[in-house]
């Protein structure tokens, strides 16, 4: 059973792609996780790592549209449409422009089950910024675990607080990861009404490493990867009680 973890933000670029990559790269187990960059506003990974145009998210979306019947009963999942980054992390990268990326995410949202089509233990989906009633929101609702990445910033936290009720209804298992900031974790949890699963400090070197701008011999020593490893282990091991799938559109106030 493939475990799908979807990461998103409510705006403000708190580092969803960075955390998604870190999370997927340290996913426990031999097989690890597949990273799907399903950012409707366009992807960065293909450019940063000079990947080929195909196989990528476009191919995965096309396979999702055709469905298993038109693919001879066997549809490859994200792993079948991914390229390996240096180091071995398989990535299904989004197109760089928003129009093509948005189309691909829309097709994917029509058949989110394809994310679990191959036997990868986990799929980490980078949804970027989530808009209400968007294809990305439908993908998030289909995921096993949803991780909201938020900057410790008054406006951002207010946005989370106002959306908390809608999130509780829409998502099976929501975790909140707070990046940087001086507020205490309990204060944030109190202010937003959601528990904070993890705090991630500022780690510019790890972020530069993930952007492909810096070499690092021992990335696992970096705080960002250490925190990501803790989070990944928890996400992989803890199985939340799964309520009945809720297909109502997500009412995100932004």
């Amino acid at each position: 059973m493939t475990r799908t973890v979807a990461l998103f933000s409510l705006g403000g670029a708190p580092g969803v792609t960075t955390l998604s990559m870190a999370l997927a790269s340290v996913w426990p187990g031999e097989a690890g996780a597949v990273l799907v960059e399903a950012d409707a506003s366009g992807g960065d990974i293909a450019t940063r790592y000079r990947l080929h145009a195909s196989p990528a998210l476009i191919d995965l979306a096309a396979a999702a549209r055709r469905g298993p019947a038109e693919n001879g009963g066997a549809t490859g999942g994200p792993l079948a449409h991914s390229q390996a980054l240096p180091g071995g992390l398989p990535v299904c990268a989004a197109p760089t422009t928003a129009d093509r990326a948005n189309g691909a995410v829309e097709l994917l949202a029509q058949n989110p089950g394809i994310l679990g089509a191959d036997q990868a233990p986990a799929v980490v989906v980078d949804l970027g910024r989530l808009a209400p009633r968007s294809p990305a929101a439908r993908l998030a609702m289909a995921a096993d675990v949803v991780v909201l990445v938020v900057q410790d910033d008054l406006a951002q936290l207010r946005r989370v607080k106002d959306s908390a009720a809608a999130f509780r209804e829409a998502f099976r298992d929501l975790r909140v990861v707070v990046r940087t900031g001086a507020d205490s974790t309990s204060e944030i949890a109190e202010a937003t009404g959601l528990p904070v699963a993890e705090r991630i400090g500022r780690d510019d070197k790890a972020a530069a490493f993930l952007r492909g701008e810096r070499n690092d011999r021992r990335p696992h020593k970096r705080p960002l990867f250490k925190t990501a490893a803790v989070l990944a282990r928890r996400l992989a091991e803890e199985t939340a009680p799964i309520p009945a799938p809720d297909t109502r559109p997500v009412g995100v106030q932004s």
Partner: protein
Amino acid sequence: MVETATTGANRTAKGGTPPVRLLGNGPRRWRWLGFGVALMAAGGLIAATAADQLDDRQGVLVAGGDLPAGHVVTAGDLQVTELAGTQGLSVVFDDRLEEVIGQTLTLPVAEGSVLPETALGTDSAYPVTGQAVVGASLAPGRFPTSLEPGARVSVVVLGSQNAGGNAGGNAGGAGGGATTPGVQAYAAHLQSFEPGTADGPAVVELVVSAADAAQVASAAASENITVVQVSPQDGGQ
């Protein structure tokens, strides 16, 4: 439903860090390449310097021609050659060239041989105390043709009627020896030797004991001497 785990709840229970399935993809650091090249250059320089210091060859002065004792050294007499392992040897290094010029040799130096420190002296240091230099002209047949400057010789004074026991005693005391009555021999060094023309006399300069100088000089003036070359091991006898 919302997960209720809070920060750090499980962190202490889980040790070890999993490998990161990513490798550095950053730009090549050309400055490291430059650093490597600089390091190689520095290593080469150090090795060259070390090798240079290990090679302790120094320039030493060598006679450019046969130089007799008493000769005043000029720049034309000297050559410089590179020599290693000169510790403990009596040599003169080339940095003392200026100082050596104008000094007097107290020993003869053959062409191509190293100029010994001990052969250098000032004018006042030659001849040394207890020795005297006597000039003499020798008729052909009164000297062996194998004579060379520096040879150890015995000066034989012929027909010295008044020598008697007195002169013999002196000669004996000075290391010379009178072996035949009326004939006396004196130990000497040959300082210089200029063979004469076909039948002309050869001119020699003899270094003799100061005590013998008068005897030898007077005999030389009357052309009553014969020079006999002896083995250096015989001590002039």
